[in-house]
């Protein structure tokens, strides 16, 4: 159980992000919470690829050591980070527009489309 601490940390981060999304009223804080969730997913992918005693997956840096950490999750994380960056930029632009139109960031007051 204690050896799985990285996975539990990922779960806690995710939980914190989810609660922040539901609790917070401010759109910028919600954007931050979504970033936290994205980071927790990236952390999860990297943690999946760790092998005890493994080295960096680059041949001339690893030297004679043949145990390397898994490279695929690192490649996946690279992709996921860029995607998270792109979505954060878009989300912030949308929030700028929302503030321009509604004059508020409170999610409860943005309600022209209810019903």
């Amino acid at each position, binding site marked *: 159980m204690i050896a*799985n601490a990285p996975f539990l940390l990922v*779960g806690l981060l995710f939980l914190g992000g*989810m*609660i922040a999304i539901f609790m917070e009223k401010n759109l910028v804080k919600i954007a931050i919470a979504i970033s936290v969730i994205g980071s927790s997913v990236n952390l999860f992918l990297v943690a999946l690829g760790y*092998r005890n005693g493994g080295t960096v*997956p680059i041949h001339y840096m690893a030297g004679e050591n043949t145990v390397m950490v898994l490279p695929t999750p690192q490649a996946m994380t690279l*992709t996921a980070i860029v995607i998270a960056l*792109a979505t954060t930029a878009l989300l912030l632009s949308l929030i700028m*527009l929302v503030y321009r139109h509604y004059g508020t960031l409170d999610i409860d007051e943005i309600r022209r489309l209810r019903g």
Partner: protein
Amino acid sequence: MKKTVFIAAAILLGAFITGALDVVHPFGDPLEVPMDDYFIANALNDISAENIVTAIVFDYRGFDTIGEAAVLFTALTAVSVLLREGRKKP
């Protein structure tokens, strides 16, 4: 009332995810990794790439990378669509 339901749902989801992560495999000890071992063994010999991660990103899983470049391009396009200067109403 609504808030309580949401928080309960969030906690449930978080607990689910924590539970799922706990049974993946013990941290630092993946059991069998045929795909990654293939990459580690063959990246240097096949395409003489020292950096295996780069070899995966641009060769073995290169199609993901063009998707990723497309995501960045999409985000740029969407941002410039949202914040464009429109024509004024006459």
